[in-house]
């Protein structure tokens, strides 16, 4: 019987994104998550972890905790970088032709669109982001 949770503590560097995504692929297969839910989890993990790696100057670690219970998967990302809440920063313009389009802001937009719940808190000098994904969501 596989553990229903995954915990990884990693250095804040790009290689950690790969380590985390590899671990998540194995986890989603072991837990037999539906493909759509598994893919959304991968996307959320990639976007949020990449954000910390690229923007959190001074973070010494990031920690990913994943818990699967029934239809819900909770993804919690903790880092010890400067205070920063990536949520609620507005929706990027998704219109426009090839020449005008840029990618900035899209990552968080995906996370906020696909999550059933998303919240941020600052505690003990840590940024803590909690994302809940629901297998029943469209």
């Amino acid at each position, binding site marked *: 019987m596989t553990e229903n949770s995954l915990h990884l503590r990693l250095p804040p560097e*790009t*290689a950690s994104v790969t380590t985390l995504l590899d671990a998540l692929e194995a986890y989603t297969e072991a837990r037999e998550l539906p493909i759509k839910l598994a*893919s959304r989890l991968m996307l959320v993990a990639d976007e949020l972890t990449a954000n910390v790696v690229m923007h959190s100057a001074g973070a010494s670690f990031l920690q990913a905790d994943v818990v699967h219970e029934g239809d819900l998967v909770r993804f919690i990302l903790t880092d010890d970088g400067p205070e920063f809440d990536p949520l609620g920063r507005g929706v990027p313009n998704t219109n*426009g032709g090839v020449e005008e389009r840029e990618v900035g802001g899209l990552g968080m*937009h*995906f996370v906020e669109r696909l999550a059933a719940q998303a919240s941020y808190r600052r505690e003990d000098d840590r940024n803590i982001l909690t994302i809940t994904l629901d297998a029943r969501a469209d």
Partner: protein
Amino acid sequence: MQITQSQSGALQVATLDGRLDTATAATAEAALLGLLAPPGLVLDMTKVRYVSSAGLRTLLKLAKEAKTQGAAFSLVALQPAVREVFEISGFDKIIPSFASVAEATQA
């Protein structure tokens, strides 16, 4: 991310296998830009499990570069998770996609 090359009519086809994510996007971009030339490039996305915003950055770069070169650029066989991201981001309106390489070649 593995990339396999082939030809379909006059078009270059690049078949991708793996994740197009934050860690793999830059390398994939360099390789794919090297394959892009008139008349055009088709990316076979059958085995791409998901695409993050880093991957979209790569695809957008290819689309912009294709436009500059006067080359066609399209995607084939988007998986549901990838299609979802395309729709949310509006990229489905700016990068053509088809069900198969044959369709992309005839377009």
